[in-house]
C-alpha cells in the first residue's frame, strides 16, 4: 500500500519525494515501492533513482524531460500503489563472517566505552539478530542497515579516516554498514569480513537489495583464510 507523499523540486535536474506517513517502516516501504514502480515505467530522460529511508531522489536530464512530466508520472505511480498492494519482494538472508576487534576492528574498544558495554557485549549485540538493509548508499553500493540493538546511538569519529579497507564492518548513529570498496569514512569500525562484498563485473552490481538481511557471525582470526575472497552470496533456504 502506498502512503502519503510530498513532491518537491530539487534543482533544475532533480525532484525529491518524501513519504510523510510518520511511521518509518511504512515510509520506507512507500519510497521503495514507488522507486520500483517508477523505474519499471522507464520514464524518458530519467537517469537516477535513489530511494533511501523516507525519501526518493529522481535525477533527470531537463533537456529531455521536465519537472511537470516527472511529477505527473510519480503521482500516477503513487496512486496506483495506493489502489493495490504490491507483493512484497522476498527478503533474502546473507550470512557474513566477521573478525571483530584488533587490527580489523580498531574502534571496538572506543565503541564499547561509549556505549558503557564490554567489547564482548558489543560483538554479541552486533551479531545477535539479522540486520535489515534499508538502502544502497555512498560510497559505491554500501548496504546501509538498521543498526543493532545498542542502548544508544554511536557517535561518528571526530576525525574521519582517509581510507577504510573493503569489508570493514562499521556502525554510526542507529545505522550499520559494510564497506564494499576502499573509501574515506567517519564511522567507527568494529571488524572486517574476509568475504568479497562487491564484484564489479557482476550483474546486478550488488548481490543484496533493500529489504534483505545480514546476519553477522563472529569468527576467529585464524579462520580468515577459509573465507578470504569468497564472494558474498545469499544463503540458501
Amino acid at each position, binding site marked *: 500500500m502506498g502512503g502519503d507523499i510530498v513532491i*518537491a523540486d530539487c534543482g533544475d*535536474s532533480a525532484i525529491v519525494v518524501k513519504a510523510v506517513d510518520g511511521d518509518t517502516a511504512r515510509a520506507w516501504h512507500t519510497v521503495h515501492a514507488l522507486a520500483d514502480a517508477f523505474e519499471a515505467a522507464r520514464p524518458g530522460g530519467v537517469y537516477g533513482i535513489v530511494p*533511501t529511508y523516507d525519501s526518493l531522489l529522481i535525477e533527470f536530464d531537463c*533537456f529531455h524531460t521536465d519537472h511537470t512530466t516527472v511529477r505527473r508520472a510519480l503521482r500516477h505511480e503513487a496512486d496506483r500503489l495506493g489502489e493495490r498492494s504490491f507483493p512484497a519482494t522476498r527478503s533474502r538472508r546473507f550470512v557474513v563472517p566477521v573478525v571483530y576487534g584488533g587490527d580489523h576492528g580498531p574502534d571496538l574498544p572506543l565503541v564499547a566505552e561509549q556505549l558503557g558495554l564490554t567489547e564482548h557485549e558489543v560483538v554479541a549485540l552486533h551479531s545477535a539478530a539479522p540486520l535489515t538493509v534499508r538502502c544502497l548508499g555512498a560510497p559505491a*553500493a554500501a548496504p546501509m542497515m538498521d543498526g543493532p540493538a545498542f542502548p544508544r546511538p554511536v557517535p561518528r569519529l571526530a576525525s574521519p579516516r582517509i581510507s577504510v579497507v573493503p569489508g570493514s564492518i562499521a556502525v554510526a548513529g542507529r545505522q550499520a554498514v559494510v564497506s564494499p570498496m576502499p573509501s574515506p569514512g567517519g564511522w567507527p569500525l568494529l571488524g572486517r569480513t574476509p568475504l568479497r562484498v562487491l564484484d564489479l563485473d557482476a550483474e546486478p552490481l550488488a548481490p543484496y537489495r533493500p529489504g534483505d538481511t545480514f546476519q553477522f557471525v563472529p569468527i576467529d582470526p585464524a579462520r580468515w583464510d577459509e573465507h578470504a575472497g569468497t564472494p558474498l552470496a545469499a544463503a540458501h533456504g
Partner: protein
Amino acid sequence: MADTLTVHRAGLATVQDLGRFGHSRYGLPVNGALDQHSARVANVLAGNDEGAPLIEITALDFSCTPSTDVLIAVTGAPAELTVGGVRRDQWEPVSVPAGETIAVTGIRLGLRVYLAVLGSVETPSLLGSCAPDTILGFAQTLRGDDELALRTHCPPIDHPVFRIPLFRLNAPVAHFGDSWTIDVTDGPDLEEFGDTAERLFRSAFTVTPRSNHIGLRLSGDVPRRTTSGEPLSRGVPVGAVEVPAGDELLVLHRGRGVTAGYPVLAVVTATGLSALGQARPGQSIRFRRRTVADAVSAHRAQRHAIHALKSRVRTAFDALRIPATP
C-alpha cells in the same frame, strides 16, 4: 597494427565521457566530465557522438602524437594549442598529420581542457562508461608513453601551402574570466537556514584547494543552519550546496556519493555545474538565484546550441568528405 595516439606529457589527464548513468540506485555516483558543455562541444566538433570517450586534461601541460592523420577538437579552459609547433584555435576542428605533436600548454582562467579525436579512442569501460570513479578504483589515467588505440583516421584537410585554419563553425564557446557567477535554485531545505540563507548571495566565496570532482569547498561568509537534528541519509543531487560544519560551503559535483545527511540550501543549475567544473582554487565565486524554470530554459538553450552546431559540423564535414564516425 592499429593506429595510436602516443602520450608524451601526461600531466593530469584521463580518458573521460559524460558519465556512468543509471546506477545511482546502487550507490554509484554519475561522475563524467566536470565541464559537460565543453566536453560535448569538443566531441561534436570532432564529428563524434556528444558522449564519446575523449581526453580530459586538468591544469597541467599535455602533449601527444598520432601515428596516422587525425582530426581533433580542443575546448574548455583557454590554453596554448599547437600542432607541430604551429598555433591552432580551440573550439574549432583541427587537422593533425601523422607524426605531428599536439601540445596543450599554459591552461589558464579555468582548470580543464577537453581533447576529442574524430572516431574517438578505444578505452576500457565499466558499466557502460569509461568515466573515472575514484571509489571503484576505475580510471584510465594517462601516463607518459601510453598509447591509445584510435578507432579511425582522417585524411589531412587543411590548406597544403598556407596552413590557414579551415573551419569557422562558430561553436558555443564557454565564458572564462577571473571570477565566476554561478546560478543556483532554492534547495529543498532552504528554510532550515532562516535569515542566514541570503548570505549565499550577499558576498563572494573563494574556491579552496580542497576541491575536486567530488565537491568544491568554498570559504566565505557561510549561511548557518538554524534548526538542529541529524536528517536521515537521503539522496542528494549533483550541485547540492551544503553547509557541513565549520566555515566552508560544500558544493557537490559529479563524483559525489549519492547519499548524504546534510540539509541542502541551494542546488547549482546544470549550466552552473559546467562552469563550476572549471573553477580554480583561489578564484572567486558569486551565486545568483534563479527560478527552476529559468534554469531549465538556460540549459535547453545551451543544448540546442550544441545541436545546431552538430548540423553545421555535419554539413561542413560532408562537403569535405570527412568520414562519419563509425
